[in-house]
């Protein structure tokens, strides 16, 4: 598996941009305020880096949990023994797709209270769907004759899954993980509404005041974060992508 650096370049650039942004944006903002003479007595109590950290923590936890649950649900519905509950899982997953993430967040507050715990639970509910669909579509996407030949050659069931089905299904499964993470990143920004912290706080602030500088402070880091996640996962996906495999 030759390892090219080219696809990872944009990720590095974006990470550097994010770090620079979180270190220097505060000072730039106040300088601009002095220039324009807008007296801004707001004394931000939060450092941008800390918020980014919180945001990544929420997205990481909810991403990991929704991937685990999604894979388990996917495996269950694909396995012989639990074929019966497959239609139930599918319908439930289909219904949750219809519920807006904002409603999910607020419904869970009376149950789990405010804070990161509720946010993670809500994000997991949002994030499980694409993972589940990725796993099911990925495994069903493996050409059946390849599996039949593998069986015909005497490969044991477990090995077939490990060596044939998983690697071939991996690109679609990873695409499911990627969609799930993207949904989590955006839902995490909403989670600030229920006290879960993260970059959402700045964004809510931006939505409230509508001041250009606050909007930039609130939105740019989130967008950078989302794009970094996206490109990283796309690169990992390409490593597994079979069509583009070639010996040269």
């Amino acid at each position, binding site marked *: 598996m030759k390892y090219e650096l080219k696809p990872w370049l944009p990720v590095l650039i974006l990470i550097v941009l994010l770090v620079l942004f979180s270190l220097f944006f505060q000072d730039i903002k106040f300088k601009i305020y002095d220039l324009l003479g807008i007296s801004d007595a707001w004394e931000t109590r939060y450092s941008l880096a800390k918020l980014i950290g919180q945001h990544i923590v929420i997205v990481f936890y909810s991403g990991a949990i929704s991937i685990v649950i999604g894979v388990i649900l996917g495996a269950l519905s694909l396995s012989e023994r639990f074929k019966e509950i497959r239609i139930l899982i599918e319908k439930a997953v289909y219904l949750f797709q219809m519920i807006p993430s904002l409603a999910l967040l607020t419904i869970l507050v009376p149950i789990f209270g*405010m804070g990161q715990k509720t946010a993670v639970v809500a994000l997991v509910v949002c994030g499980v769907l694409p993972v589940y669909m990725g796993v099911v579509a990925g495994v069903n996407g493996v050409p059946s004759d390849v599996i039949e030949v593998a069986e015909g050659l005497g490969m044991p069931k477990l090995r077939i899954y490990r060596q044939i089905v998983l690697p071939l299904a991996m690109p679609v499964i990873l695409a499911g993980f990627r969609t799930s993470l993207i949904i989590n990143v955006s839902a995490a920004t909403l989670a600030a509404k229920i*006290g879960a912290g993260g970059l959402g706080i700045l964004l809510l602030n931006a939505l*409230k005041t509508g001041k250009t500088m606050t909007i930039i402070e609130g939105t740019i880091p989130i967008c950078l974060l989302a794009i970094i996640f996206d490109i990283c996962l796309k690169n990992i996906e390409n490593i597994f992508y079979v069509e583009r495999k070639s010996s040269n």
Partner: protein
Amino acid sequence: MKKAISMVLAVAMMATMLVGCGKKSEEKKVVNADDPIVLMLPSTSEYEIIGYMTLLALEKGGYACENKIGAISGLDMLREMMLSDECDITMGYTGNGMYYMEEEGEKVWNSLQDGYARIKDYDKKTNNVDWLSPAPANNTELLAVTKEFAAANNIEDMYDFAEYVNNGGELKLATPQYWVEYAQGLPGMEKAYGFKVAENQLVIGAKAEKEVSEGTDGMNCTMIFTTDGRIDELGLYVIKDPLEIPPVYAPCLVAKGAVMEAYPEIADLTNAFMKTLTTEVLIGLNRKVDSEGADPETVARDYLVSIGLLDAE
């Protein structure tokens, strides 16, 4: 084709359920038939109650009004609407004048009359907008804890609270982002009473009155608006603020200069009920809407009837 029929049925169902519920208000004799006064207010309960009182009072006084109460769903749209020609009458708080004139931290806003006078002539001069006489109430931002918590740690005013925090009392305080940042918010209180809330004790996002009252997730303190109707039901105790750090937020109607010149009578019509709205009265009215769940229009109507401005139908 059968499938299509069942689909049409489903859509029809949804339509009947919704159309059936809404009914528009009925017609009346009018003084200014041609251009109705546009009444546009945000949709939180206190705004809606006072909005409907104004609507009913004006309609009783023979003015046609276009009811856009609740059309402003964000408080930040309020100032924009206030100055834009889309709305004739809206409502604002005197304390917000501090933002509009960007004079955070000035002491003048801590007294109702001075603050009112300041914003009144500023807006009259710069934006030709009239701030009508304010209600004698103060819906300011203070801290609240449950009654049991206050009794247990014998917290009565902010000095006791400062003492409690300083000797390491366990605290989880919920507050919206802006209150943590602006001079008369938490920073002002911390400076005045000499205490410091650590970052991990803060839950930034939104007020959490219900969570504090139920103690979910270890939440034991929240920022609260002092005329909030849910204080009694949720068993909360608003910590007194002897040094009066936050400004006075007295609700008062704000009307376009042109509208006031055309119909000066509006000032007296609205003042008739505004002057009776003390903090306690507002708390009672909010309580009906927020705690009991009554409709703001009926609450406004009952109140006007109770003070004799409206005859009960």
